[in-house]
């Protein structure tokens, strides 16, 4: 291996080369996107805030089986099931999730919960603007997860969306 730290080099040349790079950028079109004024459309399969779903008849799809909690690598789902009764039928199966909580501050948005769910009861949506001022507010309850997200993020039309060519393909 050659030791470059001692190779003779003119410091003026080096400095000029560096400024040259900066100078060239001045004439290029900037690629900065002004978030939040401009919201860049997301990929349709972007994994963001979770959503719990209902059947068309209004019953919850989730049966409180805790399989999502088992799959979750961040251990951030808590499910406490209870039994459906004729007077209080919440889901289609024998049991339902009496408590369903996701701690968003721990979630790594891997989507394993969605994969594990045998009833497609939970999916990951596109919403990512979920920061809060207090950590406790990041624990989403069942009611929050069943509701429509308050903030919506634009999702690109998959037809129009052109996948950018990866950098390594053009520069290698």
């Amino acid at each position, binding site marked *: 291996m050659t030791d470059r730290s001692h190779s003779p080099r003119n410091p003026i040349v080096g400095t000029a080369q560096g400024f040259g790079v900066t100078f060239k950028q001045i004439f290029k079109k900037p690629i900065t996107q002004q978030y939040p004024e401009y919201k860049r459309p997301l990929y349709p399969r972007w994994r963001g805030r979770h959503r719990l779903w209902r059947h068309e008849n209004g019953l919850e799809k989730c*049966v409180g*089986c805790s*399989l999502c909690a*088992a799959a979750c690598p961040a251990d951030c789902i808590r499910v406490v099931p*209870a*039994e459906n009764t004729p007077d209080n039928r919440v889901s289609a199966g*024998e*049991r339902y999730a009496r408590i369903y909580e996701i701690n968003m501050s721990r979630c790594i948005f891997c989507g394993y919960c969605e994969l594990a769910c045998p009833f497609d009861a939970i999916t990951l949506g596109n919403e990512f603007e979920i920061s809060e001022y207090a950590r406790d507010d990041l624990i989403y309850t069942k009611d929050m997860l069943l509701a429509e997200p308050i903030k919506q993020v634009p999702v690109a039309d998959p037809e129009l969306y052109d996948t950018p060519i990866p950098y390594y393909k053009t520069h290698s």
Partner: protein
Amino acid sequence: MPELVTLTIDDREVQVPKGTGLVETAMGAGIEIPVFCYEPRLGPAVGACRMCLVEIEGMPKLQAGCTMTAQDGLVVRTAATSDKAAQGQNATLEFLLLNHPLDCPVCDKGGECPLQDLTFRYGPGTTRMVFPKRTFDKPIPISPTIALDRERCILCYRCTRFSEGVAEDHQLVPRNRGAQTLITTFEEEPYRAPFSGNVIELCPVGALTSTQYRFEARPWEIQNVPTVCTMCPVGCNVTVTTREGKVKRILSRNHPEVDQGWLCDKGRFAFSHLRAEDRVTQPLRRVRRRGFATISWEEALDETERVLRGAGGRIVTALSGSETIEHAYGLAKLLRTGLGAHSAVLPEETDVAIDAFRLPLSAIRGAELIVVVGDDPVAERAPVVDLWLKLARRGGAEVVTIGAAGSVLTAPGSAAQTCRELAGSGSELGRRLRESERAILIWSSPGGHGGAEIAALAGELGFAGKPGSGAFHLPATPNGRGVADAWAAASDDEGPNPEPIAVLVVSGDEAASDPHVRALAERAETVIAIVMFERVALGWADLVLPGTSYLERDGTAMNLEGRLQRLRRAAIPPVADELSWLSQLAARFGVDVSPYPAPVFEELAGTVYGGLTLGELGERAALAERAQIPAPAPDPDTEPARPSDGHYLNLLPYRPLFAGAAVERVPELQFQRPAAEVELSWDDAQRRGISSGDEVLVRSNGTSATLRARLNRRLLPGVVRIADEHARDLHATVEVTKP
């Protein structure tokens, strides 16, 4: 030494004693033969499920491995090396799943289900069944504690074999035949038997599930804590399942010498008393006549200190026998060395003489002659011992019960006399006991001087020199011996019984419910009660300090064999546990009590257990060697019971298994508690024209009770049995009439 045979399993040579089951043989060689119905504890294999199919050289068809034993020269191939066996098992699983619902996400067994696991490993990945599956109503509550889901049942008959062949209650039965078979209870009555809960653990699928555990937790959400049940003196080894800090269920942990993996329903289901609505979670002080006000811990300790100091040593302590040894020692050290209060009401008499005839409970299985002396059924005093007796009887042992309701009838309360007769030269049974190499004596009655009585008999029969023969004393409290040891270890001094009593310290709910202790409380100026439940202390205790349950304690307890076992804390109690505040209180009197059980045990073990350490007890505690103690002399003044004159009957009150402050607070166990019944012998009932189910009036000198009559053909004429909670104020002789 049994003959060894050599056989080949999956190209591996294995040598085992002849007659070993093929499943165990393979397991010993590290080869799995999957099973559902096979369970050696339930008796001979039935070959019901066909999961264990193996190919055997020379046999044209696949064989059920569980029904075979190791034979010389056998060449066995399991699914690992034989395609035929693998195909057979795959087909078996496909058949089992034919009508099995896709319930895994809502099934309590999900995640710890043998059917799931074996299907995953040996079964088809997909189903070919497109037609609708068979459905039943579900879940069916076959008792308040057990739910049955017939759709999930794979008809392995484990549950019915348990009911028929282990517990011998004959209540869970198969109905119909072939594919139409249903599991049901006899006559569709609730499954009311002391060991019913074991079928939940036996069922390899989610067909029999616990109603208490229904939808409570999943296997990946729980913690399991190995501890010991101290609801009775057997001390079964249990695993306590907790989720989010709450106890959700109790499973057996199978100590082969103590419980063989069976539990009684009290041990299994009574845990919900931890969350009783009248649980004491704050120290209380009596206000007015029948009320309590909560006070802070600081106030409570100040008040306790003031009361104890003011007593001038005139203190009596009543113990329950359900404390851990450490807790009892802490209390004893505070009161005895700190305050010189040596007077105690110990939960029961104990005697070391019985240790000379010590045997593990599993020795009952190998005995040839077992004599049970006493009026109480073994199942009421030490339930799991009853299962050992049944196992011995099925194995050909002769079990003789001598008592007011035994196979040999004697007057109530004459157990000690029976012992004298057996020791005498005229007794035929005594002679056989003397000659037998494997004979066992069991005392199942109140009294008995803590085992001294039965030990004296064992000594006279020469059991000391026979390692296969021994004696058991069935005590009334779970840890009475340990508590007595702890009390003795704290001090060597003696003190007079104080009169009048300034302070009565009552430790535990059992002591607080005891009528004798209540009578003592009448005479005490101040009563300090350490109890779990408010109602137990209401109206007579002046200061209540919160108690904890055995599931919330760390420590040790000694069971009826004399086995020292380790309890571990499964759930954090809602209050500071006894040792922690005892240590603070003791510090105020200049006594050093550690708030942690381990140093406390170390301290007391040096005095009473020969320096044993907690680590030496281990997960499944071993039984200490027999002690070399000369047998005590028999107690000469045994008073025979007064024979009944026909009109007046002798009342034999008994303490039922399903009783006590904890059981009263478990809604699911209420159906197991004894009904308001009086058991009458056949003769007495006929003479009075009473038949089973009649309402009768039971009267004695000024008090009376209306109870339902039940005929007990095994009861001695002239005796009536009533559970003590229904016999409260009745005297020793009663009249029974039809109103």
